[in-house]
């Protein structure tokens, strides 16, 4: 199996404001979000990062997407360093997260063209890709409707389509089904499986066990910024369900707070 992602001892700390210190009842000025994370992902697999809120999943994915820089360590996507070659990394990846939004004022058609231009996609390639993706998700009927006038589900579909406007080999999804109704969530998971079938690599973060069991090939369990388990989903769930495995690990690592 060919390795497409290599994460090497990634660390990230955030400075806490006085108010945050009071809220978290700590005197520490720094909060360690990611603490020496190392793992790899292989081409053509769906890799899940599973963990509770605040475990460091989103911070890890944001570092991989080059939105924020690690304090130390590095990650290589298709051989490009997120620290030293962020522009190259950005051209190779697709990134979808609830934090990234599209301007409500524009239509799906305009936004697809705009982001294609930012990625330097030639117009003939762009048009073919747009037609295929728009009809796949039923956006074609709403292609000229402003985003502000679309339903939440349709907006999410447009975001999904825009995130793969450059037909990336490596796609990062942060909590891809969060806040979606069951139908839209299914559309998203089906699309992830389709992308995998096309040979794309997907890394996603989630705290939904069923999503990991359903679509992930391998899973890394992350607690307090550290990777505490890493294996294939089949191997990890050999003896009991993922939920039970997770709580066992959590009890062991976090001292039974769950």
């Amino acid at each position, binding site marked *: 199996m060919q390795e497409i992602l290599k994460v090497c001892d990634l660390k990230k700390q955030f400075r806490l404001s006085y108010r945050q210190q009071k809220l978290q009842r700590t005197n520490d000025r720094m909060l360690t979000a990611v603490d020496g994370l190392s793992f790899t992902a292989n081409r053509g697999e769906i890799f899940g990062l599973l963990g509770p809120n605040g475990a460091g999943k989103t911070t890890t994915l944001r570092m991989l*997407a080059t*939105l924020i820089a690690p304090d130390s360590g590095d990650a290589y996507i298709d051989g490009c360093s997120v620290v030293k070659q962020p*522009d190259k990394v950005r051209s190779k990846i697709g*990134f979808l997260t609830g934090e*990234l*939004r599209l301007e*409500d*004022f524009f239509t799906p058609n305009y936004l697809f063209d705009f982001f294609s*231009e*930012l990625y330097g996609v030639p117009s003939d390639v762009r048009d073919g890709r747009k037609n295929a993706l728009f009809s796949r998700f039923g956006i074609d009927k709403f292609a000229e409707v402003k985003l502000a006038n679309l339903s939440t589900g349709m907006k999410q579909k447009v975001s999904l389509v825009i995130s793969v406007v450059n037909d990336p080999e490596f796609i990062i999804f942060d909590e891809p089904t969060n806040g979606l109704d069951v139908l839209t969530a299914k559309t998203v998971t089906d699309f992830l499986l389709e992308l995998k079938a096309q040979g794309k690599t997907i890394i996603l973060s989630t705290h939904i066990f069923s999503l990991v069991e359903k679509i992930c090939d391998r899973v890394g369990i992350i607690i307090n910024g550290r990777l505490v388990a890493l294996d294939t989903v089949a191997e990890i769930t050999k003896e009991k369900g993922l939920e039970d495995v997770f709580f066992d690990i959590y009890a062991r690592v976090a001292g039974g707070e769950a």
Partner: protein
Amino acid sequence: MSGIIAIIKKELARFFFDRRMLVTTLIMPGLLIYVVYTLMGTLISDIAGGDARYSAAVKNMPEVLTAYFSGSPFDISDASESDDAYKTRIVEGSLDIFVLFPEDFEDAVASAGEPGYEAPNVEIYYSSSSDDSAAAFAAFSAVLDLYEKAISNVFNVNHGDGYDLGTPQSSAAYILSAIVPMIMLVLLFSGCMAVAPESIAGEKERGTLATMLVTPVKRSHIAIGKIVSLSCIALLSGICSFIGLILSLPNLMKGVFNGIDLSMFGLGHYMMMLGVMLSTVLLLIAAISCVSAMAKSVKEATTYVGPLSVVVVVVGLLSSLLGRGVSQWLCLIPVYNSAITMTGIMSLSVTPLGFILTIVSNVVYAGLLVFLLTRMFKSEKIMFDK
């Protein structure tokens, strides 16, 4: 480069396809200036006299005064009825003034200066509660004063024409140089304020800027694309305001200087004005963009930019008071340079060095601010700190 063009196109589309923004930023300021100044000019002109005519009933009008009233705004009628009838009409508002000359007015005046001379009294009845009546009283008194001065003439000052060596054009230039720079600075600033915080802090607040930051487009290209497109929009807004201002000035001034002649301004002056406006909006947009990038929301950005707006207004005011005859090296001070160069263009006294220093320094400052904005786009603390 294609990234810059894509961002410029997007920003322009965002503006030009939004009818509300188009009207409020582009059309309304110029139109409002034109309408307000024209109204102000009309009001001033009415107050200053204008074309108003007054009705006057005069008893015993001396022959010698007839010439003084030719061309005056009075419709004079010979009073043959009783005095009380005319007074009643004044109170009712159907007559403005009633003037009663003594029967021997001319003889009495002719004996002025002789021993035992007693000045005759001209009675002018009017109503101070009526604007027209009060104005008619003032105008009639002024004519009588003129006559009094003429018959007791001891010496004259500037009798006749030809003493004012200023041409109507140079007077107009002087007035414009006091008004235009201050108003234009404020208008340019408000044009920039209408678009820059929304485009930078607004996009940051809505999370749409982060979506662009995750694409391979260079941060510097995003900064350049934004500043160039926002400057184009702010410049257009400035041009519309300038046209509204220039078109309204003859109307504004008609009551004070009998209109204003703009024929002394050639294409070169207007092009220079355009150049100063362009370099000024580039600088203002870049500065407001940097301040907006620091803010977490449009509201916060507007608050941060507040002190800058005070600086612009104060500098605009200063330039019209202190802007004449200053050292050309002051053209290196941002904002102030725009004000004094605009003053120079409007007063026809701009120097090539001052003009070039203004343009070049503004562009250099804007370039430095683009660099700063790029750094800010790269800073995760500024872009993603909640």
